[in-house]
């Protein structure tokens, strides 16, 4: 073996390495292909060797050759071999080659799954990193499916180096295997608040990209991103976030309002974000003219800049604004016209886009003239075609609104036909037809122009490709035929249309030619018959009879059919002509009558036939709506009650405001009211809802043109005024009536005057009541809009952390808890009741250490301490705050004195002694839950942490600052997580011999074995592996992966527990805690 290696390395001395290869290629400039083919032969030899170093070298060279454009797919398997080398040096090269050469069709990718999985879980972070990088390039749906779970685990890797890669690659995985999105999303969201900025920006990147594809699923993240946007200093991240908001604002208009302030700040801060800001602004701001003004001003500066890049971006952003706010862009016409002369095509194209919004009746001709000059100058068909479509777009926009002279437009169109190689012949043709048909006054001019076109058709027929310029002939022929009265010399045109060359045109054009030749023939006949010399008319017929047979033989069915039809007709006419019968009138009658354009809305003008009532019911309507329908619409006051809830009518505005306030507070404090998505609340207790983002009025230096009153408001105001007026008039009338004492039945109808009086109040009411509804729409956007309610639904898979609830005594009575107990105990009812009581006591005692009452004001209660499975060093503590006083509690701040081992996780930037503010306030009698995350280093010992809660008690007349001390007790049990375990795995675990054992005996335990097990499982997070009679094995795992195994036996009120665990002190403490649980019974 050693000899082989030495031999291999000696061989290698003579091998070419990459540098030699590159040098060789450079030295063989003339016969490169030949040189490379010999190199490839060498490489093939090298690949046959066993020495992995030689192989790696060969693969490295292949990667280079692949870049030069040589096919290396034959070496795919060798690449996989090098990838699977245990040496990082070669693995790196293998993965690089794979990322460059593999694509979805590469079949050896299937072989790599296990290798990649192995590398992903390698203890060496660089192995993992290289595997992730490679995977990002060649991930296939199969790989994504198989490896999604592994990558997801890596998202919580201890090294940020791996975390950020794993987060980024998840995006690729989502694309290939969308099912992975839902289970991975909570963790992805967690990464948004990762302490490492690289990981954070990676998560922002991924979520932004995801949101671009399906924004509405991510609306609930808006508050979180808002926070990031206002706090982040990383421009890269900022730009991504702004982009994300650009996608979200169209869905949630209120977001736009909230974004204006921070975005305006950003505009002032740095240039690079300006564009991003502008783009999101322009797409999302409904009617905020001030910010738009600011944008446009800033953009002008950009466009005027000498830097071409800025100019381009300025124009690009301007065109986005143009779509929503054409007026504000129009004032910069001069600048944009200037850009049309730019040397750079990219810039000209952008400027062209903008021109659309610039034109007016005055300047249209001037602008188009300029464009026509460009058309002539333009090289490259793409740009010329772009110009052409733009010219037509500009001219035809809003029904030719800006065209004052159609003769000019027709000549422009005719000029455009001179363009070679355009692909927009059809567009020009349809414009010609449209104008000629709809603008009657122009027909004479148009027909003359078209006749010239037909005459010079040979200039256009050079290009017979689809949509080529020859399409124009279609229009020309039709116009000449249909409006042939305007022709100066119809015979000449007829002759032009029947030239043999026509047969080379596309079929549909020939068909039109023939049809219109017939029309022209009719016109010519009419002109010629009046003349004494009848010979001429016969000559014309002869012309057709001579020329048409060519078309009868056409391969195109349409052409053939029309040609033979017309031919027979002409033959018949000729017969009649020979008998000297006047036929012109009859032939013209064939084409009599004008073809009129039909407007899209023409249907409306069709009178409804008598007796047709579209509103009438076909079947008997349901009785309710019938009565409503039959009400005479004329009586205004009677329509109102439909919107009114009678009880509310008496409520004045103040009362409404008060109620609203109360309801909001109730919602804010009610733990059962689902506000934002529940998962976000879990992990980020401090995240405020969208509602909580402050809307700040900004003072813009730019003068506002339009006062910021939205249209609807104005409308509302008008409506109110109208009603007021009506009411007054009515009152007057009423008075008059009363005076005249002419009250008849009518008075009854308009009876409920009081309702009329409060109409304005109703409108206000409706407006305000809508607000919470809109709010709930964001909150529930996830669950309502996307059927599988992507992220809201709790995860069903085993990864979900089991939530164990320790409830205080008073809540114990709740039916849910009761049911839980019932199911646990199968004892006779009497006993179970007793049991319950005992349990209650036990719980009470257990919580006494945790429950703290202070001056009967506030109870702080640790509701649950829960290890975080995803992160072995985190513990989540849920605390219920209950306000027992009659005052309002606010500004609660939760602080814990950190120990060496356990620390409260504080947001970045907070000092080690700063408290965390509790994200809610407590009205009297209300309780709410908050969660705090602690990082714990060692979990083998139970711990107590001292803490304080400071808060402000606010009563009617005064407010005082109060403090409450408490202790948090982290038992070892709270670090255990119920983990199911199969008996065979359990047996293996015990056999492995890594576990230390310990045992404990409990005397005088009178409960049934079943109940006993249930208690251990419930209180200490174990799961039963196997149970045989009065003997059972239990299993649990700590958050840091320690296995804890128990063997519980019972005999005569004595319970013996033999336990095994890989951490003896943890085991000892857990056993102590179990003992304590039972000693309390």
């Amino acid at each position, binding site marked *: 073996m050693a000899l082989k*290696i030495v031999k291999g*390395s000696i061989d*290698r001395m003579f091998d070419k390495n*990459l*540098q030699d290869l*590159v040098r060789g290629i450079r030295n063989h400039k003339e016969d490169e292909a030949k040189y490379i083919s010999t190199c490839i032969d060498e490489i093939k030899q090298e690949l046959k060797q066993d020495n992995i*170093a030689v192989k*790696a*070298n060969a693969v*490295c060279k292949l*990667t280079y050759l692949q*870049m030069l*454009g040589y*096919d290396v797919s034959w070496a795919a398997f060798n690449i996989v071999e090098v990838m699977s080398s245990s*040496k*990082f*040096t070669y693995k*790196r*090269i293998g993965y*690089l080659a794979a*990322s*460059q050469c593999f*694509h*979805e069709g590469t079949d050896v990718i299937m072989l790599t799954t296990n290798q990649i999985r192995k590398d992903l879980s390698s203890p060496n972070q*660089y192995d993992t*990193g*290289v595997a*992730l*990088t490679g995977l*990002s*390039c*060649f991930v296939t749906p199969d790989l994504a499916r198989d490896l999604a779970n592994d990558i997801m685990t890596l998202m919580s890797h201890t090294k940020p180096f791996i975390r*950020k*890669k794993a987060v*980024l*690659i998840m*995006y690729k995985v989502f694309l290939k295997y969308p099912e992975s999105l839902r289970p991975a999303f909570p963790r992805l969201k967690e990464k948004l608040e990762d302490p490492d900025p*690289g990981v954070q*920006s*990676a998560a922002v*990147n991924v979520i932004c*990209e995801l949101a*671009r594809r399906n924004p509405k699923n991510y609306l609930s993240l808006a508050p979180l991103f808002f926070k990031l946007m206002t706090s982040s200093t*990383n421009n*890269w991240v900022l*730009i991504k976030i702004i*982009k994300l908001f650009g996608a979200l604002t169209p869905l949630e208009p209120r977001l736009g309002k909230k974004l204006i302030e921070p975005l305006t700040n950003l505009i002032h801060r740095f240039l*690079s974000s300006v*564009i*991003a800001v502008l783009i999101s602004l322009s797409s999302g701001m409904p009617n905020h003219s001030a910010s738009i003004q600011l944008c446009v001003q800033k953009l002008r500066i950009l466009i005027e800049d000498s830097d*071409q*890049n800025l*100019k*381009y*971006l300025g124009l690009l952003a301007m065109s986005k604004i143009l779509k929503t706010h054409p007026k504000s862009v129009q004032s910069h016409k001069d600048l944009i016209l200037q850009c049309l002369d730019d*040397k*750079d*095509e*990219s*810039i000209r194209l952008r400027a062209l886009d903008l021109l659309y919004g610039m034109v007016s009746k005055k300047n249209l001709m001037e602008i188009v003239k300029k464009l026509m000059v460009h058309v002539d100058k333009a090289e490259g068909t793409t740009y010329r075609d772009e110009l052409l479509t733009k010219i037509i777009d500009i001219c035809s926009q809003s029904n030719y609104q800006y065209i004052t002279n159609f003769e000019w437009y027709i000549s422009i169109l005719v000029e455009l036909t001179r363009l070679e190689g355009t692909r927009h012949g059809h567009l020009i043709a349809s414009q010609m037809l449209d104008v000629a048909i709809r603008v009657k006054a122009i027909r004479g001019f148009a027909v003359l122009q078209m006749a010239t076109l037909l005459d010079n058709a040979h200039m256009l027929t050079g290009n017979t490709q689809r949509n080529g310029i020859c399409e124009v002939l279609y229009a020309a022929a039709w116009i000449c035929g249909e409006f042939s009265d305007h022709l100066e010399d119809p015979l000449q045109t007829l002759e032009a249309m029947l030239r043999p060359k026509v047969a080379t045109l596309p079929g549909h054009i020939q068909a039109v030619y023939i049809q219109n030749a017939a029309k022209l023939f009719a016109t010519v006949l009419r002109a010629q018959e009046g003349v004494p010399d009848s010979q001429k008319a016969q000559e014309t017929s002869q012309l057709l009879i001579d020329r048409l047979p060519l078309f009868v033989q056409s391969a195109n069915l349409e052409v053939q059919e029309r040609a033979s039809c017309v031919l027979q007709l002409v033959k018949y006419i000729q017969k009649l002509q020979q008998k000297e019968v006047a036929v012109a009138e009859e032939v013209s009658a064939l084409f009599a009558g004008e073809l009129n354009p039909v407007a899209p809305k023409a249907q409306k003008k069709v009178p409804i036939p008598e007796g047709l009532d579209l509103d009438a019911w076909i079947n008997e309507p349901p009785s309710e709506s019938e009565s409503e329908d039959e009400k005479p619409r004329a009586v205004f006051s009677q329509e109102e009650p439909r919107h009114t809830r009678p009880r509310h009518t008496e409520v004045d505005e103040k009362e409404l405001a008060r109620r609203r306030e109360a309801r909001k507070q109730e919602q804010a404090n009610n733990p059962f009211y689902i506000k934002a998505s529940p998962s976000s609340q879990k992990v980020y207790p401090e995240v405020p809802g969208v509602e909580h983002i402050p809307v700040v009025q900004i003072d813009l230096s730019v003068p506002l043109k339009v006062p910021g009153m939205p249209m609807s408001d104005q409308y509302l105001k008008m409506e109110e005024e109208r009603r007021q007026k009506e009411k007054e008039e009515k009152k007057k009338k009423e008075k008059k009536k009363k005076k005249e004492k002419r009250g008849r039945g009518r008075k009854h109808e308009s009876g409920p005057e009081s309702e009329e009086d409060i109409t304005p109040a109703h409108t206000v009411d409706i407006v305000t009541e809508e607000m919470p509804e809109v709010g709930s729409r964001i909150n529930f956007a996830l669950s309502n809009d996307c059927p599988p309610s992507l992220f809201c639904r709790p995860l069903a898979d085993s990864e979900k952390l089991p939530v164990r609830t320790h409830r205080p005594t008073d809540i114990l009575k709740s039916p849910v808890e009761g049911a839980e107990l019932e199911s646990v105990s199968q004892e006779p009812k009497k006993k179970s009741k007793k049991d319950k009581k005992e349990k209650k006591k036990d719980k009470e005692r257990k919580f006494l250490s945790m429950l703290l009452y202070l001056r009967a004001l506030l109870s702080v209660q640790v509701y649950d301490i829960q290890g975080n499975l995803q992160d072995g060093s985190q513990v989540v503590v849920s605390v219920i705050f209950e306000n027992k006083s009659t005052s309002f509690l606010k500004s609660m701040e939760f602080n814990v004195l950190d120990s060496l081992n356990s620390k409260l996780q504080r947001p970045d930037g907070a000092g080690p002694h700063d408290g965390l503010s509790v994200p809610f306030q407590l009205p009297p009698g209300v309780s709410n839950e908050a969660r705090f995350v602690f990082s714990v280093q060692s979990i083998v010992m139970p711990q107590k942490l001292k803490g304080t809660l400071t808060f402000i008690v606010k009563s009617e007349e005064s407010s005082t600052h109060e403090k409450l001390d408490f202790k948090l007790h982290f038992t070892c049990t709270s670090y255990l997580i119920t983990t199911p375990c199969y008996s065979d795995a359990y047996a293996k675990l015990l056999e492995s011999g890594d576990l230390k054992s310990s045992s404990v005996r409990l005397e005088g335990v009178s409960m049934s074995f079943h109940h006993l097990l249930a208690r251990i499982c419930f209180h200490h997070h174990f799961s039963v592996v196997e149970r045989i009679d009065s003997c059972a094995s239990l299993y649990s795992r700590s958050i840091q992966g320690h296995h804890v195994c128990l063997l519980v036996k019972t005999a005569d009120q004595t319970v013996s527990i033999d336990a095994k665990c890989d951490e003896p002190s943890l085991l000892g403490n857990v056993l102590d805690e179990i003992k304590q649980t039972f000693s309390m019974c």
Partner: protein
Amino acid sequence: MQFMLLFSRQGKLRLQKWYVPLSDKEKKKITRELVQTVLARKPKMCSFLEWRDLKIVYKRYASLYFCCAIEDQDNELITLEIIHRYVELLDKYFGSVCELDIIFNFEKAYFILDEFLLGGEAQETSKKNVLKAIEQADLLQENQSEDWGGLAAEEVL
């Protein structure tokens, strides 16, 4: 980002990184077309190009063109910034980089790119972190190759 190409003034491809799966034939076609279009542009023109339904952002550094293709909604300036950042990284790593550095150490250039971009998205915005990761990986590589039969790292490559 869809892909990144590095090519010389003579139109020779120096580096290519594709973040979308395409067949070799398609890649070649795109490369040829783009190299032609970009080289035809004059130095004073802007760095953006609308090409098919993509946007091309390119920049010339000495004799090399760096060219990225992004989607319509992507930010052009940040793409320029990415290009610049990559050039800075190469510069730091090779010590005033030149075209030959990239030709002869093209795998290193890829490693740096992979450390900086992943799947077409910026992975690490800190220059220091990228270089640190590369240096450490290089170190690992050198240690390993020393272990192995006493071959110097250069020779193995």
